[in-house]
């Protein structure tokens, strides 16, 4: 239950509820129909009598409603009933259910680390050739890799998000003559400029919130991951995630210190909330909203933060708020981003389950679901313009881009003892004043033997 993903997935709700449904009407319009669905897209899955498939996931609220809606036509045309069970405890309960022989037919696994462990325990059924063909066609090699173990392919990716956006107010930038920075150094320089211009007691250039209930600390791991990838490149990033490059290595400590230049400087944080120590207690949902009050100018959070702005706020390049991707460190290096996503793992080996898996890995489903709003997909078969928002479209272009290096959120790939535990608490301690060296040493020590 300790995963950042659970929280992250949940946040897309507000937007989804408001804008998403409206947009669904003008973009895809495929789902949610009554008895007059066009079944030609679904013939390939066959028809079934009285078949039902349980889909288990951490997704709840409006996001879950949209998910259920996204397969309404599929259910009607194939005769398969999909019983959706969404609970925030799913990541913990799946272990119990698997151990007790009570596994669901399908689980939407929100992080590769858990997926790999379930596969390692022999609980997951390998994906069929048709599912694999879909994934080969629509996804990049690295996405397929997260769903595979030892060359066997198990789970197709589902939805995705892009990490490392820095949110800002275009009006604020224009008024003060700020430029969107090209490199990390520019970003730090911009921050300094903002701090120099500041004459308010409550304003700081950045507003930061790492608070997230029992998952507090995870937004901080995104900062470190972004910096490791940009400072030391994808190879070092992969080694770090695989546990070969320890946290206490100079590379990772450097990334902590670079983030610390901003996060631990009381002149730079925490606009609208207080000093450095307020980072841990400010919830990640609330933190960025200080931009709207003019209490800060910059907020680092993934694409799904769009949902937090509320209905009255226009998210666009010339709107109330907009975002740029955390800039690269080396101006000559290629673009790289981190992101997250979900995977569809099957625990039952039968035809109806396979049909659902095939459908969820298809471009048909991805177009319908993205069209409903609130989420994006890395599925190449989806036209980014289908996405319900500009930021969604931009994120999908980044995900589908040929020359952007994409890396999965590192903490989701690490063993649970680190990725959803000591890394988070390490961040909390670090923000609380512990040194980089002691925090990184402690995280290293928590690696399972």
């Amino acid at each position, binding site marked *: 239950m300790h995963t950042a993903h659970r929280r992250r997935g949940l946040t897309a709700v507000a937007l989804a509820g408001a804008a998403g449904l409206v947009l669904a009407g003008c973009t895809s319009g495929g789902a949610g129909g009554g008895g007059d669905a066009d079944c030609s897209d679904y013939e390939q899955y066959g028809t079934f009598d009285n078949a039902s498939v349980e889909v288990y996931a951490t997704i709840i609220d409006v996001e879950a409603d949209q998910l259920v809606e996204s397969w309404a036509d599929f259910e009607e045309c194939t005769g398969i009933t999909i019983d959706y069970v969404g609970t925030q405890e799913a990541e913990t309960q799946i272990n119990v259910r698997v151990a007790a022989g009570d596994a669901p037919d399908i689980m939407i696994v929100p992080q590769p680390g858990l997926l790999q462990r379930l596969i390692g325990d022999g609980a997951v059924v390998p994906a069929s050739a048709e599912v694999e063909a879909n994934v080969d066609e629509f996804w990049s090699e690295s996405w397929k890799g997260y769903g595979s173990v030892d060359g066997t392919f198990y789970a197709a990716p589902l939805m995705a998000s892009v990490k490392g956006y820095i949110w800002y107010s275009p009006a604020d930038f224009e008024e003060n003559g700020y430029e969107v920075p090209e490199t990390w150094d520019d970003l730090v320089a911009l921050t300094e400029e903002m701090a120099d211009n500041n004459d308010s007691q409550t304003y700081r250039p950045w507003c930061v919130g790492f608070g997230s*209930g029992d998952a507090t600390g995870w937004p901080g791991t995104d900062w470190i991951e972004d910096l490791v990838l940009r400072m030391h490149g994808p190879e070092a990033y992969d080694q770090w995630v695989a546990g070969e490059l320890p946290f206490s290595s100079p590379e990772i400590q450097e990334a902590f210190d670079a983030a610390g230049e901003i996060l631990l400087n009381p002149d730079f944080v925490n606009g609208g909330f207080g000093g450095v120590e307020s980072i841990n207690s400010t919830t990640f949902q609330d933190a960025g909203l200080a931009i709207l009050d003019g209490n800060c100018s910059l907020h680092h959070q993934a694409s799904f933060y769009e949902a937090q702005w509320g209905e009255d706020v226009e998210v666009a390049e010339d709107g109330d708020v907009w975002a740029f991707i955390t800039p690269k460190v080396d101006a000559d290096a290629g673009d790289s981003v981190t992101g997250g996503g979900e995977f569809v793992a099957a625990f039952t080996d039968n035809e109806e389950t396979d049909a659902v898996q095939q459908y969820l890995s298809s471009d048909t489903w991805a177009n319908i679901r993205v069209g409903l709003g609130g989420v994006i997909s890395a599925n190449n078969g989806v036209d980014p313009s289908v996405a319900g928002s500009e930021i969604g479209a931009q994120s999908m272009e980044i995900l589908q881009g040929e020359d952007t290096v994409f890396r999965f959120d590192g903490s989701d790939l690490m063993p649970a003892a680190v990725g959803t535990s000591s890394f988070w608490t390490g961040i909390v301690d670090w923000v609380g004043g512990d040194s980089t060296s002691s925090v990184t040493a402690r995280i290293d020590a928590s690696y399972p033997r």
Partner: protein
Amino acid sequence: MSATDAAEAALDSPLNSKKVRRQRPEGKADRAKKVLTSKWATAGAIIIAVIWTIPTAGLFITSFRPADQIKGSGWWTIFQNWGFTFDNYAEVLTAQGASSANLSSYFINSIVVAVPATLFPLVLASLAAYAFAWIKFRFSAAIFIGVFALQIVPLQMALIPLLQIFSGALGISGTFPAVWIAHTIFGLPLAIFLLHNFISEIPGDVIEAARVDGANHFQTFFRIVLPLAMPALASFAIFQFLWVWNDLLVALVFSGGGVDVAPLTQRLAELSGNYGRNLHRLPAAAFISIIVPLIVFFSLQRYFVRGLMAGSTKG
């Protein structure tokens, strides 16, 4: 029999009435005076009562405040920032989607879970408690002590084996009966222990008299023991009902987490897990979950104490 009962019995005896009646009011008045005149005791009582009440009272006030005020200021500023609304309650009770239910549905689930999960162990435990108290059989004491000791088994560890049985042999995982049976099992050790304490205190002559009249164990149980054990039964019923209603762990595992079976606590924990965003819904949701146990509790609390006191008052 407890000492007060004895005193009361003495009080009723006509021979002693004058003397006792004279004595008791004096003693009572004396004691009351002492407590009330002690400033420290009064102050202590007030401090404790206030500290214990404020958290709940504060949340109660908060639950009626508009969302932006809940986020912006404390409930104690209610008079500076006046605001009163039922919106939070209306929202949590009725808001729902295609995949989730509103709080009312979870409320119903809680009731459907709690009633059988209270009655089943009550019936089974009273039968067993009678046997341990009044039927002589080998190892009866040892088995009884074993049952008592089962209270130490952390129920987290019993979850998987039970779920195995429910999903394998019985095929009922994720349904109400699974939750009922699980709660029944986990409630039995305490139930048998409490009811045994009470039932074994029923005077032997009463049981003997029934036996002499030719009653068998069933007749004795239903005609003599059950009516006499009412306070203990009520006491355990309250205990178990509160426990089941307030339980999170058992429900989490055996209800399967679906909206058709999951109880209020589970929904509440989910709202609480997304604390920041649900700040304005939580107080109202918490109060809805508290109402039923409070009613049960206050309407039956005198039984609660009497039942629990059995077996603990004698020296």
